[in-house]
């Protein structure tokens, strides 16, 4: 018992000394001694002079594997070449952090990675500064698709470094069930529907359509809607009604796995073999594909009368308005946009599309390259739309509307009536800013 009291006392003394470290004003110090050994990493470059620092706050690379890749295989190159110590922080609601830094004028973040849906907000709130000089100095060409999101007036605020679309992925076991004359690399949604129904009849439901609430139902249906000529987001337009009907047919014929309601992505269902077919965001698709490239086929989004529809997003790199390390930040952006580096980043993380012509030219036949090329196909030749998150008071609520419609359709065995759709459209419009 005495030992315990002593321990408690020591603990409190130790903590008292930590209080200084615990207050958030302190810049991030070297890692506290961990209970488990950390793998030996060369974080400190050979000290000749004091290394400069750079802090990146990113919404991209939220998956631990991606962060690992960036930290282990991308950042060291930059750190060694420029004698900089880079801190990478990946968090969800960066807007709050930006707002806090702006309000207190204490800019600890130098470089920020933002999703295209949020870029207008950042530009409007002056969280980032123009990058015209860097952009002009770079000898590469960025795809036009993201001009509108990354620029305001004559100023470029972001350089897009990765883009993503939705792709089709199929287990090779599904191929024998393709409808007559269908080419998996050039499917229409009708053929996709027939394919899924064929499988349902022979082996049971095999389509993964992740339906976990507030995740990606909106994007899957959005892409479908675009293929049929609808706008995004929209519930009751003619094109959208056609899209609902296609999926409704699949539901009616039991082609979609009911367990899809439990998942926010098709990874588990596809990898375990429970599902053989899915249309989903290219990052999870890339994850599934690279787990065993010989087992799967990846293709561009299926097409409707209007083309291959998909919701597309992009991530851009920008420099915060109040950074104290502008030169280092500049160097970092230049480094990141080097074609060989950008290719590595794209391939080594989820398999995003690098929206730079020079990088695209380098794509080969490796699994991730294959994913990237398919994505590119959709991006350049398909019907894509971004995510207009800033136009709505709460995007989560928008997602919920789509969830409600889908669930109702499921409960009604695949049918929806127009009045219900109109009602939900009103709910959607009520959310507009």
């Amino acid at each position, binding site marked *: 018992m005495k030992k315990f009291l002593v321990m408690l006392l020591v603990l409190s003394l130790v903590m008292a000394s930590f209080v200084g470290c615990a207050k958030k004003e302190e810049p991030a110090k070297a890692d506290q001694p961990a209970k488990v050994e950390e793998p030996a990493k060369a974080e400190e470059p050979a000290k000749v002079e004091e290394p400069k620092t750079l802090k990146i706050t990113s919404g991209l690379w939220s998956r631990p594997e991606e962060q690992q890749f960036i930290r282990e295989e991308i950042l060291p190159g930059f750190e060694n070449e420029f004698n900089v110590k880079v801190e990478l922080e990946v968090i969800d609601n960066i807007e709050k952090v930006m707002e806090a830094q702006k309000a207190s004028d204490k800019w600890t973040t130098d470089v920020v990675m933002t999703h295209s849906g949020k870029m207008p907000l950042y530009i409007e709130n002056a969280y980032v500064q123009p990058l015209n000089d860097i952009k002009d100095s770079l000898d590469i060409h960025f795809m036009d698709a993201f001009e509108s999101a990354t620029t305001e007036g004559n100023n470029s605020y972001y350089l897009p470094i990765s883009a993503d679309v939705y792709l089709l992925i199929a287990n090779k076991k599904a191929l024998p069930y393709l409808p007559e004359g269908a080419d998996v690399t050039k499917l229409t949604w009708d053929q996709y529907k027939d394919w899924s129904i064929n499988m349902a009849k022979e082996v049971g439901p095999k389509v993964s359509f992740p339906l*976990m*609430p*507030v*995740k990606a139902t909106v994007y899957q249906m959005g892409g479908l809607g675009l293929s049929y000529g609808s706008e995004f987001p929209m519930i009751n337009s003619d094109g959208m009604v056609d899209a609902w009907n296609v999926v409704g047919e699949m539901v009616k014929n039991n082609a979609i796995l*009911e*367990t899809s*309601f*439990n998942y*926010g992505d098709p990874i*588990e*269902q596809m990898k*375990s*073999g*429970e599902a053989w077919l899915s249309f989903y965001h290219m990052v999870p698709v890339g994850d599934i594909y690279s787990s065993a490239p010989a087992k799967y086929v990846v293709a561009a989004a299926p097409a409707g009368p209007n083309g291959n529809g998909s919701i597309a997003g992009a991530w851009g790199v920008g420099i915060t308005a109040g950074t104290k390390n502008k030169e280092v930040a500049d160097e970092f952006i230049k480094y990141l946009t080097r074609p060989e580096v950008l290719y590595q980043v794209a391939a080594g993380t989820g398999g995003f599309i690098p929206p730079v012509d020079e990088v695209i030219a380098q794509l080969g036949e490796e699994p991730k390259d294959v994913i990237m090329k398919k994505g590119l196909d959709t991006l350049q030749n398909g019907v894509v739309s971004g995510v207009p998150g800033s136009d709505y*008071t*709460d995007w*989560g*609520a928008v997602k*919920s509307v789509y*969830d409600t419609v889908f669930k109702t359709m499921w409960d009604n065995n695949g049918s929806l009536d127009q009045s219900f759709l109109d009602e939900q459209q009103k709910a959607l419009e009520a*959310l507009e800013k």
Partner: protein
Amino acid sequence: MKNKFRKWTPYFLLTPALLYYLFFWIRPVFNAFIGSMTDFDGSFSLRFFIEVFKEPMFSAAFRNSVLFALISVLLQFSIAFMMALLLNKKFKGVNLLLFIALIPMAVPPAAVAILWKTGFSTFGWLNNILITLHIIKTPILWMTAQGFNALLFLILIDTWTVLPSVMIILLAGLQNLNKEYEEAGLIFGATKWQVTKDIIMPILKPTIITAVILRMIAAIQVWMISVMMFGYGRVPFLVERIAYYTDVVPMLDESYKMSLTYSVIVTVIVMVSVVLYLQVSKKSKKEVEI
């Protein structure tokens, strides 16, 4: 002099805690109560309560929270009581057994979720075991449970997590029970069952009441396991709705107000349940004065 001082001492001792509560709990809760009854323009209004009652998921959330609390408490206490009775013997390894029983309590909610999600998924370990033991041929789709089945599902998982700690409370009460009462009963010819019913349980009553109240309060506020297993909205609970408004749709004008309103409703329900329960148990307590 000493006496005067003595009179004030308890208040001195209590002050730190009370001040702490005043500052860090009463203030925010008070603000929450006021906030739930204030309209956007600052005027008094009950419209958020009306909006909550009109919500499509409100009745499901209410029903689920109440049912969950009732069923889980009843279930857990019956099983825990039996377990405690059985474990109330001194035998080798009882402490080790106790430790094993405590394991679920040390597992954080997020980990419990992976544990059971990997278990109940179509190709998860539960189906794995059942198929290996040839009890079933094809995997059962546990996770497609809807409505009441889904509720039972969650109760099951909650029981796994919570049962050990309930059992321990009862066990501790039993072990502090004076053996003499039990023996006296047996000497006078009562059966083991009668001894349990008429002697042990009444003496244990205060402990049981305490534990039930703590469990009830926690059970009415369950939400995270539902969200982690099924996502938002599939098996709604009152506090799950609070999490929904705080986490999923935080930017709507009414989000904050709705979560405050739900919180107030939950608090009221909890208080009412506790008071009701105390009344009921006090009544039967009177019969039991030894």
